[in-house]
């Protein structure tokens, strides 16, 4: 069983009814739903309708499949999704820092991963060159020299 964490520690899961994109398309209603987005489904597929979900889980079927980073960023930056964005699937310690920068706020950490190491990974870097979901300004607009 995966350990659910945020950047501070382990958190409890609030169970929501999960739907896939296809299920939701067939019957687009219900409150406080959780959308499961597979890695071959893009953010543009849902677009502005992302706001109807309380939570969106983006799947990483394999940690090396990087599509979820773009999906997360687009949901946050383009479609203004303010709900919970959760990374699920093959979620490993050494990808957490990137996931955080792309706008994920909860992480279903694979069960064999060490919690302490995972939490430490969120503060791997104190500087980032690029703009991201956490900071709209890239470093070149923030440098104080």
């Amino acid at each position, binding site marked *: 069983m995966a350990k659910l964490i945020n950047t501070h520690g382990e958190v409890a899961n609030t169970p929501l009814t999960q739907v896939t994109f296809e299920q939701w398309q067939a019957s687009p209603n219900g409150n406080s739903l959780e959308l499961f987005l597979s890695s071959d489904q893009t953010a543009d597929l849902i677009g502005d309708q992302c706001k109807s979900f309380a939570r969106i889980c983006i799947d990483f079927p394999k940690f090396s499949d990087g599509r979820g980073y773009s999906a997360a960023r687009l949901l946050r930056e383009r479609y203004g999704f303010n709900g919970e964005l959760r990374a699920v699937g093959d979620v490993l310690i050494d*990808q957490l820092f*990137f996931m955080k920068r792309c706008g994920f706020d909860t992480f279903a950490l694979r069960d064999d991963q060490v919690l302490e190491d995972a939490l430490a990974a969120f503060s791997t870097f104190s500087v980032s060159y690029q703009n991201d979901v956490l900071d709209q300004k890239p470093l070149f*607009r923030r440098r104080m020299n």
Partner: protein
Amino acid sequence: MYVYDQYDQQLLNERVTQFKGQMARYLEGKIAEDEFLPLRLQNGIYVQRYAPMLRVAIPYGQLNSDQMRALAKVARDYDKGYAHFSTRQNVQFNWPALEQCPDILADLAEVQMHAVQTSGNCIRNTTTDEYAGVIAEEVVDPRPYCEIIRQWSTFHPEFAFLPRKFKIAVNAVPGEDRAAIAMHDIGLNIIKNDAGEVGYRVLVGGGLGRTPILGTEICDFLPEQHLLTYLDAIIRVYNQFGRRDNKYKARIKILVKALGIERMRELVEEEWNRIKDGEGQLTQAELARVKQHFVDPSYEDLTDEPETLISAKAENKGFARWLSRNVRAHKKPGYAVVTLTLKQIGTPPGDVTAEQMDQIAELSDEFSFGELRSTHQQNLVLPDVEQRELFNVWQKAKVLGLATPTLGLLTNMICCPGGDFCALANAKSIPVAEAIQARFDNLDYLYDLGELDLNISGCMNACGHHHIGHIGVLGVDKKGEEFYQVSLGGNSGGNAGDTSASVGKILGPSFARDKMPDVVATILDFYVANRHEGETFLEAYRRIGHDSYKGAVYGKAD
């Protein structure tokens, strides 16, 4: 050159700490082999045939003498006393111990060097013209743009797990492609429009490897400030839609081919329109800040062709030869650009010993403001040498074995490490290079042959750029035996006089290794017998045609 500020250094130091931790967790068994793989790759570590290999980045081929000394120290302290300069302007160590790599990276961080993203499915080291900043022909100095791209691509949060590796190259010389940009995932040609504004002509989807394709124009003029958002847009499209089911079809060139350039452009522009005016847009302040790092050194007011140079040239044929091949015109009167060739007979192309590296650092301090360049032809460059010192530099370089006067000629081969080191290789490449160098060691003959690129790869990953050699050699495996396939007519596009890039065409069935010098000799004899006055190998090939060469080599045309 670019000097790190506190932000750059902090980030690199944190990277060193991160990888130290990852290595420790791996050695404790807390990270599985396949999950450690991309972590070590993104820190430059391959596991090769006999030992790990560490690839250290030389961002756009630019380094200084202290960095060269640090590399020499790594070669001595952690390796077998030598290093290998690669076709992507990087440097590789063939024998480090895996568990010592974090220490090497810590040592290198002290001189602002690293192995960040030198491998893995991420944005790799950006490459450019090795003469950037010192030649008169360029529109602007491309190095500040390369540095801006370097920073943007370093630990990009969205693009660390792309479908496949991603390479960007930048050229700033009009009418020439001096960085083989047509062979990269993204090629940027820095140009000026009619209003004199700087921008980029953007190519996408070029590449060598298994499916060699020239890049296609996706944007004819992208204004200067939109560089990073446009790159973001292209790679975002690729990250979402590039194939991930087959590693051989995962490069962006396959996506561009599948979608067609029109559709690709539409997707990219749609993406770009949504971000182009945001905070990611490059500022003039940032351009100015980075450009400051690339201002000219304190050149003296000198004149071209000083008396001492003219007399030395007249008195010494060897020196005159070296001048004609390995020394290039500089933008500043009285200065010259000197290439130190790493193509000594008996040494694999691109290899250099720790002692040579220390001496090269000395040469650079004494004669070139402490700066150096690495080249895609696996040589090193002293970018700012006073012409009155050239004879002096030549004598010193000669003693070091770094003055083979064959730049641009047959024996200045590009060659990957091949089956002697690389786990991917189908065949050895270094012995082929050596046999060809040994066979064609007559300088008069080489000079008579003129401009000729011979490139050798040990497998279809094409690290030796065989597709763009005028003569290309590819190692293939035939039922466990090593054979070599020859292609003709490739061109990187960087050659003076002929600027059109092309992919070589396979000549016919492959040859055993010991036949290779004869095959090359046959091709050259055919060229010499049929060329017109002043016609280069490539020009003659294009005029005479592939089938005639095929006939000459295999006995009959079909």
